[in-house]
Structures are given as C-alpha cells and as structure tokens.
C-alpha cells in the first residue's frame, strides 16, 4: 500500500512534470545529543574484521560512515586477503541490511524475548545437568573460532556426557581421511604457489573456491607457474590452465592413480599418454611443484596427490604441512550420521544447532527433518529463518558478523578478532552469547567473552613470541593491536615437518572402472552451499563459467547431451537411488563427457533446483548410475551472456607498447587490465555493486537483458566445443577519448572531463538511450524501472553516500569510481600536492585477488599504469573504431619460452 501511494505520487508529479521549478521541502538535521563524536559523518573509518566462509575467515577492512558499515575492502596485512576480497565478503553488506533476516527470538513461531529464552534454557539445562548432559547435543558448522571452541569445551566439561557435532554440506572429509591415513594425525596442507613452477590440479578450483582462494590467486598470478588441470566442470582455475583435460569423477580418480603410476609410486595398470607427459613435467620441477586435489575428490585422489608431492619432495616446500586450523577436526559426515543414530536410539533430548540448515542440506538418506522432530528440545540460531528454523522449538536470530564480537581463523590459522561495526539492528545474538547463556551467564557480552578467552590465550602467544607478559597493560596493548591490525600476530598454525607413512603407496587402491553416467556435486559459485541464497548481490552475479544468474542448471557436455537427446533448457528428471529431482540442463563447452555436474544451494528461494535431494551419504560428492528421464517441459535459463563465441572477430588486435604523453591537465586517468590474470571470480563485480549503489534487478529483468552491472566479465569459449580456450574479459566503461556516447546526448548529460573521464550526470539525463546504442562496448545501463529500492528503510543504509542513487529513466555506467578520485583530489589539494600513485584505487581494482586491474594517472611518469603501458604490449578493445579508450588491455606475451 505504501509502495502504491509512493508510486501514485511519483506518477502524479510525473504528469505534472517540469523539473526546473522544484521547491525544496525543508529537511532536518539530527546531531548528537548528550555525547560528542569526533568523527564527521562523511569521514570514513575503517575497521579490521573478518568475513566467514565455511568456518574460515577472510581478513577485511570494513568502511563505516557515521557509524554505518558501507563497504568491505580487503585487509592488506591479512595473509588470506593481502588487500583483496572475494565476492562473498563484499556481499555480507547486503545481508547486514536485509529486512528478510530473522529479527526476533521465537518459540514455535511466536515472538519471545531473550529473557524468556534464557529462562527456558536454564530450566531445560537443569534437567540435563542431572544426567551429565546425556541428552544434550550441540550441532555446529565447522568451527575455527578459538573462543567458541573454548566455550564449547567448557560446556562439555560441565556436561560431560553431552556431545558436539559439526557438519557442513561442503566439508573437507575426503582430504581429512587422506591425511589421517597418511600421517596418522590431523594436519592441514597449505600450498605455496609463489614457490611453484608447475601445478597439477586434480579438479581443484583453488583460484576461485574456498577460504584460501584469494591468497592462492594472488600468489599464483604473481608467479604464474605452469598449470595443468584435469576437471569435470570448467572452473575458473581450469580456464587459466596451460593444459586442460576433461574427465568424469571416476576418470579423474583413474588419472590421478595413473599419474602416481607414472611417478613409480604404484605399479602401472595401463598407460596414459597425458599422465606420462604431466609426470615428466612434474619431475622437471621437483620440490617446486604442487599436485592438489579438489575438496570434493575422494580420499584416493588426495592420497595420490600426497604421494606424488611426497615423491617429488614438495612437502615442506611448495606444500606446507601445518597443525590443523579447525578447533576440532573431524569427519563431519560421520559426525552427523552419529547424531542421527543417537536420535534414532532416543538418546537426544535437547539439540542446540548453531547456524546451518541441516534439515535442508544433510544427506537425503539421513532424512534429518523427520529425525529432528523426534528431539524434544530443539534450539536453532541462524541469520535467516530456514527449514531447520521452522522445525525448531526456539529460534534465536544470529547476529551478523558485522554486528557482533567474535573470532575466526584463516586458512593458515591466523586468527582475527572480529569487531562489530554497528550495534545489532534487530535482536541478533552471537553464538558466544548463546553458549554463555547455556553456562548461566545470559548477560555476558561478546566483548567480555572474547576478552576473557584471549586474556588467557595471550599469555601463550606472548610466551611463544619470546616476550614476557607482565602487566595487564600488555594485554591491552596486545588486544588493541590485534583489533587494529585485524589479526593476531603469530597466530598462524604451526608448520610441521613430518613425513607421511612409508607405505603410503599401499593405501592406493586400483581405480574403479568408469561408470556410464556419473554425477558430481559441487558448490555453487555464487550461493555456495545455499547459505547465500537470497542474497541478491550474489544471486545476480553471473556465474564465472556459465553466466547464469539467480539459478543453477545441470551442466553437461554437448556430446553427453546429444547422447541423451537433450538441449539446453530441457527440463529432465534425474533419478539416483530412488530419489529424483527435476532440473533444466545446460550444455557447457568444455564439460567432461559422461558426467553431469549439479551445484548445491538452490531451490530454496524460488530460483534453480535443489541438487541436495538426490545427494546421499554414499554419493556425497560424486555418484554413478544417474538416470535421466526427459520431460516435455522447457525452462528458459537466466543468463547475462547468450553468445560465447568470438564469431571470428579479433578481441584485442595488435598490441603495442604505449608511451603516454603528458596532457596539459593536472591528471590524466587511465586503466590497464590484464585479462591473462583474470579468473572471472566476480570479486570486482561485487565490489563495484557495493561501491556504486548498483541495484539488483531480479531474475525476470535479467532475462530481459536488463542487468545493471557496470562491470561485466565477458566469457569467450573459443576453439573446439569439447576443449575450448576460455577468455575472461572484464569490460566496463573504457572512457574513450573520442567517446561515441557523448556527442549524441541531447542534453549533455554525458560529457568528457578535462582529466579524461567520460562522465555521466544522472540528474541531467532524460533517458533517450542514444548513448547506450552508440556505445560499441555496450557498457551503459538503463533504469527501465525503479530498480533501486527507495522505500525499505533499512536498505537506505546500504547505499554509499558518495554516489547518487539513480531513479527510473536514467542511464548509468562505470565512472571509474569518480567519487574516490574526487575524495583523493580534495585531500591532495588541501595538502597542496598532487594525488599520489596508488591513492585512487577503484572498487574493482581493490577487490581483485590477482591484481588484474590497475588504475592511475597517465600524467605521472612514475605511475604504475604508465609504466605498465610502456613496458608491456597492450591493446584497446575495438581499437580500429578510433574511439581511443583510456582503458587498455595487456596482450599476452608468450609464456614459458
């Protein structure tokens, strides 16, 4: 109704028209009351914290304005970030200000208060205390948080018979099984791509997936070792391979064993040409090579990789072995199964679930929903009301990572103490507060709990660092320093120099024969395991290798599709072990034959289908015997790019070194993009969306070709369909010196600045869209509807106050983050100096894990852009049109001789 009223007002005034005569309504200013604050509301503050993914943290700096978080940047000093982020980190902002978040504590759906809950909790636990907590179970996702682990340990001390289970649908069980078998204990492996000359990936998408991807991508691109990839579904890592093979999951297993055989680790069963070649390449780089297996690969493949690394002497060099980072490493699938067994046995009376959605994402054969119903006291806490929340008796909204105190460890063990950036917007509680309530301290704040833990822990750390810790004051220093820096110095997991057991080879069983149609379950590139489903910033990101958005599809190769008589968009029924799911198929160039890839996480918010319905404990990551039943239905898939072929058109012609001439103006902005370094990971797109108030348009509008992203990553698949060469090309406004969009604008709403920017003045735009037609790069976007949410109050906090939120009917496009240029220009002018190189970092540049984007002043002879242009051949997009873009793309020089 409110929307309707606003709409009516909009239209009435639209009819009344005639904007020049607008009378200003009076606005009000609300300064502080009884307190004073030193910070001006337009002055950004940055706070170091971390964003979680699968239990691991990525160190970030969150920019706040007037006490409101508005942007996430990487933390340059954090080992997992090195200043960059992934798309997930950016998108936590969307969920922070999401009105769909769970807002109040509920008991069977009725609103309650924290006091009600803790009172109930006290009574429930009193019962449990009598039996040592025999009926108490705690189910969490993967935990690396030292404080949480400490709290759980304390709880288990008080309730010795209680049990703690961990489960995530995308756990690392196979890898864990492998290291346990090989080392007889839990360890973590860390890969040093900066030390590698040759990398073999056995379906490991290390450049774009997982908690270490940002760091790995940076290390990899700084060194650019030779990359050999075998995989089922094309991945960003595969798209960067020097040599890429496709194989079904079974074939990968066979290939890894063949590779081990070529190295002489196991006796050869059959010769594999490719394996022999790859083995020779690896041999050439002993000690400086890496073989790594994807998290979804079976333990056999991990073991083979480990054996090869061991044989090549890579362990301890390019592959480091460390103490495990997780608080309690365990086989999560087994842990969940055990919980299920306990429930069946009637041993579970009270189940406290911290996060996650096991009802939806537990293996289908566990039928967790039915089992959960058998538990009498069910407590769940999560950000959103999900399937598990609806089945729980009590639901406590989980505080957002930006609202609460917590801690988390990165892939290498480095701990970050997460600071809140804003007080909880609703009634969110952190896990720490919930656990404290279980220990009878319902009022303990996260801050106190964290400090309690770290006060104790600091001693050991300091001792390890060889410093004495005498006074309370030193803890304060340690604490403040850790908060300030965003990580706890010296907290990285300890490097181990241990050897795997000698008879490692004997663990390697001969490969199973290939199955007719295999299925591989993978995380989704944008919603992960479903935890980000509904996050419109992520949902709208085109998936790197398919450009689908808002949904998933069953991916298969052209050959497999034609064998099954399928075409893209056909809806089929997949049957596996008596379970079935309907899904549209999508033919993906470069997909392995004989396999179907299903990604998890969809089917919850309307878009896509839930692959988890046919995922069982037995076929957790891969299974065979998939049956495909065609249906008559067709499904139009939402994709931002319909055409992946170059049509014989040269993408970047020529390529020459450019000596920039200094212009008469103070600055001449320019950008250099290295497509070779781009993995298509979307971090830049997400950062651009966050920085520039770019509204998501939703699946329907996206299907009509109306996505608003200022920056897109074009994906081309050239060459043969089964073994294409992939090119990721980030394209945003290239700021032509002879911009075709400018002279056609009737009102002068897009003009050129003296510093070389193609400027867009939204409030002068009448929306003729001529500029968009005339842009050969098609980077201009039009607000066909009122896409930006102007009415939901909490969403107003999401907008970057430095950028105008566009209304319906105007064109917009990449501005090279002109608001950042302006801020830097003002800062420099106040100090009476020029802007320094690196002072203006565009949002995309700042987020890019591989440093593929460089922005700077072409008038500054020492600037990175200018040196890059002078030192490496580059080309402009569609250079022959004579538009003279200020963005140039580096053209590859032949690598490796």
């Amino acid at each position: 109704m409110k929307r309707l009223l606003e709409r009516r007002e909009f239209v009435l005034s639209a009819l009344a028209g005639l904007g020049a005569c607008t009378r200003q309504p009076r606005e009000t200013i609300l300064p502080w009351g009884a307190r004073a604050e030193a910070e001006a509301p337009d002055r950004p503050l940055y706070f170091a914290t971390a964003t979680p993914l699968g239990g691991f943290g990525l160190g970030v700096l969150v920019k706040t304005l007037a006490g409101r978080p508005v942007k996430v940047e990487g933390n340059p000093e954090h080992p997992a970030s090195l200043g960059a982020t992934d798309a997930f980190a950016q998108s936590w902002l969307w969920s922070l200000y999401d009105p769909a978040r769970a807002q109040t504590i509920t008991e069977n759906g009725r609103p309650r208060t924290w006091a009600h809950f803790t009172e109930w909790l006290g009574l429930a636990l009193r019962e449990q205390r009598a039996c040592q907590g025999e009926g108490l179970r705690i189910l969490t996702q993967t935990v690396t948080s030292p404080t949480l682990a400490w709290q759980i340990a304390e709880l288990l001390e008080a309730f010795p018979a209680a049990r703690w289970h961990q489960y995530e649908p995308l756990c690392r069980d196979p890898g864990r099984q492998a290291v346990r078998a090989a080392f007889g204990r839990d360890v973590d492996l860390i890969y040093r791509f900066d030390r590698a000359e040759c990398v073999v990936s056995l379906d490991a998408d290390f450049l774009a997936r997982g908690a270490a991807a940002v760091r790995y991508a940076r290390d990899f691109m700084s060194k650019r070792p030779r990359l050999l990839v075998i995989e089922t579904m094309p991945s960003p890592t595969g798209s960067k391979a020097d040599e890429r093979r496709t194989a079904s999951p079974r074939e990968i297993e066979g290939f890894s064993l063949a590779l081990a055989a070529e190295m002489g680790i196991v006796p050869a069963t059959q010769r594999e040409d490719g394996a022999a070649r790859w083995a020779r390449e690896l041999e050439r780089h002993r000690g400086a090579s890496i073989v790594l297996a994807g998290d979804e690969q079976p333990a056999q493949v991990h073991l083979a990789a480990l054996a090869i690394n061991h044989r090549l002497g890579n362990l301890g060099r390019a592959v480091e072995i460390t103490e495990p980072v997780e608080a309690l490493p365990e086989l999560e699938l087994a842990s969940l199964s055990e919980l299920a067994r306990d429930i069946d046995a009637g041993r579970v009376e009270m189940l406290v679930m911290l996060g996650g959605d096991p009802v939806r994402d537990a293996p289908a054969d566990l039928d967790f929903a039915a089992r959960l119903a058998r538990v009498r006291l069910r407590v769940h806490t999560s950000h959103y009301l999900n399937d598990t929340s609806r089945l729980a008796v009590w639901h406590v909204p989980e505080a957002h990572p930006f609202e609460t105190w917590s801690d988390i460890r990165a892939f290498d063990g480095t701990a970050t103490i997460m600071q809140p950036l804003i007080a909880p917007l609703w009634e969110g509680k952190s896990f720490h507060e919930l656990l404290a309530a279980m220990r009878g301290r319902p009022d303990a704040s996260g801050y106190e709990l964290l400090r309690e833990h770290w006060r104790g822990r600091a001693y050991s750390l300091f001792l390890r660092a060889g410093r004495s810790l005498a006074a309370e004051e030193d803890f304060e220093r340690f604490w403040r320093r850790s908060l300030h820096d965003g990580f706890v110095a010296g907290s990285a997991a300890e490097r181990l120099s241990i050897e795997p057991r000698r008879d490692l080879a004997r663990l390697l069983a001969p490969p199973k024969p290939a199955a007719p149609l295999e299925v591989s379950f993978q995380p989704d590139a944008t919603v992960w395991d479903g935890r980000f489903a509904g996050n419109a910033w992520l949902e709208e990101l085109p998936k790197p290798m398919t450009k689908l958005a808002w949904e998933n599809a069953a991916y298969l190769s052209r050959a497999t599709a034609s064998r099954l008589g399928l075409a893209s968009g056909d809806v089929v029924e997949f049957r596996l072990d008596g379970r079935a799911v309907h899904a549209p198929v999508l033919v993906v160039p470069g997909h392995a034959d004989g396999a179907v890839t299903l990604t998890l996480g969809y089917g919850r918010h309307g878009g896509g289908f839930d692959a988890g319905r046919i995922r069982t404990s037995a076929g957790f990551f891969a299974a065979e015997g998939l049956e495909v039943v065609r249906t008559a239905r067709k499904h139009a898939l939402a994709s931002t790019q319909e055409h992946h072929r170059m049509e014989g058109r040269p993408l970047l012609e020529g390529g020459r070194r450019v000596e920039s001439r200094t212009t008469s103006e103070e600055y001449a902005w320019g950008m250099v993009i290295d497509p070779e370094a781009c993995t298509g990971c979307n971090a830049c797109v997400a950062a651009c969306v966050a920085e520039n108030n770019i509204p998501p348009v939703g699946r329907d509008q996206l299907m009509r070709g109306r996505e608003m992203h200022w920056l897109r990553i074009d994906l081309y698949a050239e060459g043969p369909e089964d073994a294409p060469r992939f090119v990721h090309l980030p394209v945003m406004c290239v700021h032509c010196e002879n911009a075709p969009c400018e002279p056609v604008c009737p009102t002068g709403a897009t003009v050129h600045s003296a510093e070389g920017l193609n400027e867009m003045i939204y409030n002068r735009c009448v929306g003729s869209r001529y500029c968009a037609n005339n842009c050969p790069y098609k980077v201009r976007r039009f607000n066909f509807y009122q896409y930006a949410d102007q009415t939901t109050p909490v969403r107003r906090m999401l907008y970057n106050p430095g950028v105008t939120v566009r209304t319906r009917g105007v064109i917009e496009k990449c501005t090279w983050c002109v608001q950042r240029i302006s801020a830097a220009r003002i800062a420099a002018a106040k100090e009476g100096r020029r802007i320094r190189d690196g002072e203006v970092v565009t949002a995309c540049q700042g987020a890019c894990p591989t440093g593929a984007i460089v922005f700077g002043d072409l008038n500054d002879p020492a600037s990175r852009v200018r040196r890059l242009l002078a030192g490496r051949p580059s080309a402009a997009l569609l250079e022959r049109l004579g538009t003279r873009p200020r963005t140039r793309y580096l053209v590859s020089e032949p690598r490796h001789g």
Partner: protein
Amino acid sequence: MKFRASVVACALALLAGGCRREMYDQPRLEPMERFEFFADRRSLRPQPPGTVARGRLLEDRHLYTGYSEQAKQPVELFPTSEEALERTLARLAGPPLAESFPFAITRRHFARGRERFEIFCAPCHGLAGYGDGMVVRRGFRRPPSYHIERLRQAPVGHFFDVISRGIGAMDDFADRIPPEDRWAIVAWLRALQLSQWARLPEIPAGIPPARAPTPEIPPVRLQRDPPAELAQVQAEQRARLGSYGWIDPEKKILHIPVERAVELLLEAGLPVRASVAGKAGER
C-alpha cells in the same frame, strides 16, 4: 464549483508544486539526516564500544593522553561505562602528567595553537588567558587565569589533560580538538603565560606603569550594543597581548608582546620528550 477548484488546483500543481523531485532526495543517508529506522531517528550511529578503527591505535600514551610513558597504570582511553569512567578518574591522581611535549614545537605549532585557542578557548578564557572571555561576561563561571603561579608551574600534560577531559565547569574538547592541536594549544598557553609574566634580560625603554594584574569583569547586565562591546573587549585583550607593560616592577616582571614570547620560547625551546623520533605521525 468543486470541479473548478480542482482545475485551479491542478493548474497550480502543474505550474509549481508537483514538480518532479527525482534524485533531489536520495534514499542514501545524507550526513545527519533524519532516519526513522532507529528509535532515536538519527542516521548517525555510535561506534560500538571497545572497537579500534584503523589508524586509531593510539598506542602512544604521551601523545594521546598527556601522561608520561612511565605511568604503569593503564588508562582506558574511551571509557565505555560508568564504572570504567570511575576507574579512569581514580587513576588520574596517580600517573604522572607529562612534563614535556611529545614532539618538537615549531613556529607552525604556535600559529596553529593560537588559532585553535581563539576558536575554542578564548570565548571563556579571553584572548590573553585571564579568564575574562565574553561568555564569562554573560554569566558563565569565571575560569582561573593562566597567569597564576599554580598554572605557571603546572606540567604541560596538565593542560593537555584538561582539554582532553574537562575540569570543573569546563567540558572536554576531545571531540573537537585532535591531540596534535591540543598540544599546539598547550604550546600557545605557554607563550601566553610567558608574555604575561616575563623577565627580560634587557628591559626596553618607556614601559608604561603597571595595570591591575587581572582584569575585572563588570557584572552581568543587559547588553546595549553587543558588537561594540565585543570589539572593545577584544581590543583591550589584544592590547595586553601586544604590548610591553609592568606586571610587577619590583620583581622586574612585565608583560611583553606575545610574538616576542613566542620568539623567546623558540629560542629556548620547549621541552620535548626524549624519544621524539618517529611516533608523532602515527595517524
């Protein structure tokens, strides 16, 4: 009739009132804009207590608190609760106040200190620091003059501390004056003190006879011509700051132009802590 009225109304709306306001009022939050989402309707949100922003590590105790490095007791810089405040206040008596500046004072600092002093301090303390500012003349409690023996002897850390935390009727100015500026003000205070209590090796000729050591303030009354009065008061205070005159001819103490005092201080040098290198520019 009704119809005609609505036609007129529509025409008027067309001409003016109904004009489009696209993008004039942004959904994004403008600084200090009213924002109904929060109960206090402020779009300004407080920083959660205990958090540390980048560049706000404030490890340098001398620079940021005015207490010397030797102090053993930790002081919470931003007390988050009543209790913490009490703790902090209790510790105030203990730790020794800094006797020196955290960085070397240059001419630039005196100028900056003067400017800041005249913006924030002079309304009460007066341009010359006698506690005879305009606000005091309108009924605010009179602050002590800087030119009393106790304050001449007070360590520089004391002044810094008072600016940072307030004292008596005086509020704190920590929000409005960043630490470097506070130190600059302290330096300026030293110049003021010297200018009003100077012993010179050579006394220039023609020094006028002594005036009252501390100016009297007339009782509060209704103003007749405030700007004129303001101009007159300021002129008097500036005269004191800009001239030679006897304070105590017997002890050979005079007031000297403040510029001269600055020169003298620059010559002699204000005390700087031993480990001055490096840390000053932490922000």
